[in-house]
């Protein structure tokens, strides 16, 4: 069974939305303390969870047709956005390892696409 391109696009969209979810979770997690109210009244965490739910709905729509062996690894494209947002919002530096890791992930996605037949 070949995985349709529309499924791949939906999974990419899910990865993009999910990368923003991580940003909000990270921002919220830094404000957690022993007091459980810091968990419950944490709007950043709430937005992060909402984005993850939205991302998961796109993902489920994406995997409803096609193969999980193709579509699940494509979620790793989200790391590329995550690295961009980490740099932009948290000032985390780009390192050689990050570039190398991203290069491998992109190469892996190209190989996967070639295996989609």
């Amino acid at each position, binding site marked *: *069974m070949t995985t349709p391109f529309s499924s791949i696009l*939906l999974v990419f969209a899910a990865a993009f939305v999910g990368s923003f979810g991580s940003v909000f*979770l990270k921002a919220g*997690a830094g404000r*957690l*303390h*022993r007091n459980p109210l810091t968990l419950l009244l944490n709007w950043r965490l709430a937005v992060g969870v909402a984005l*993850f*739910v939205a991302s*998961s*709905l796109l*993902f*489920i*729509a994406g*995997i*409803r*047709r096609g*193969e*999980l*062996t*193709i579509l*699940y*690894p494509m979620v*790793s494209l989200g*790391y590329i956005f995550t*690295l961009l947002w980490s740099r932009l919002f948290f000032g985390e*530096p780009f*390192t*050689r*390892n*990050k570039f*190398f*890791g*991203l*290069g*491998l*992930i*992109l*190469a*892996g*996605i*190209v*190989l*996967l*696409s*070639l*295996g*989609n*037949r």
Partner: protein
Amino acid sequence: MNHHPATVSPERPSFRFTQRQAIALVFVCTIFGAAAQILFKFGANDLAGMALGSLFGHPLQILRLLLDPPLFAGYCLYGLSTILLTLALRDGELSILYPVISLTYVWVTVLSVLIFKESMNAFKLAGITVIVLGVAVLGRKPGR
């Protein structure tokens, strides 16, 4: 409530995992995470005939999706795995935890072939291997 005020100050951080606990926790997360993906696929397969518009067309339809038994079970596992992963990533060494995280790709691939009888070929295998390496490298400490 608190009889030992000297031991608990407001600035004291919550519990911490040791490096070993963090690794074990991430390993468990990869299994939960992979199981969640398989449950998602089970639920999603029933939606294969639906158009994208009718899938998200109505708020009630989205609620029905979220409460569909395999999808709901997948969400519970995924949520649990995400929370545990967040805690483990906070306390553990990223360069060790990232390669462990990438095990999820291995479990999902093996389970998809076993359960859904998905096809495997050299390009797919190479692609997944290279992605696993890529995710592992992402967490490496800045080298020389």
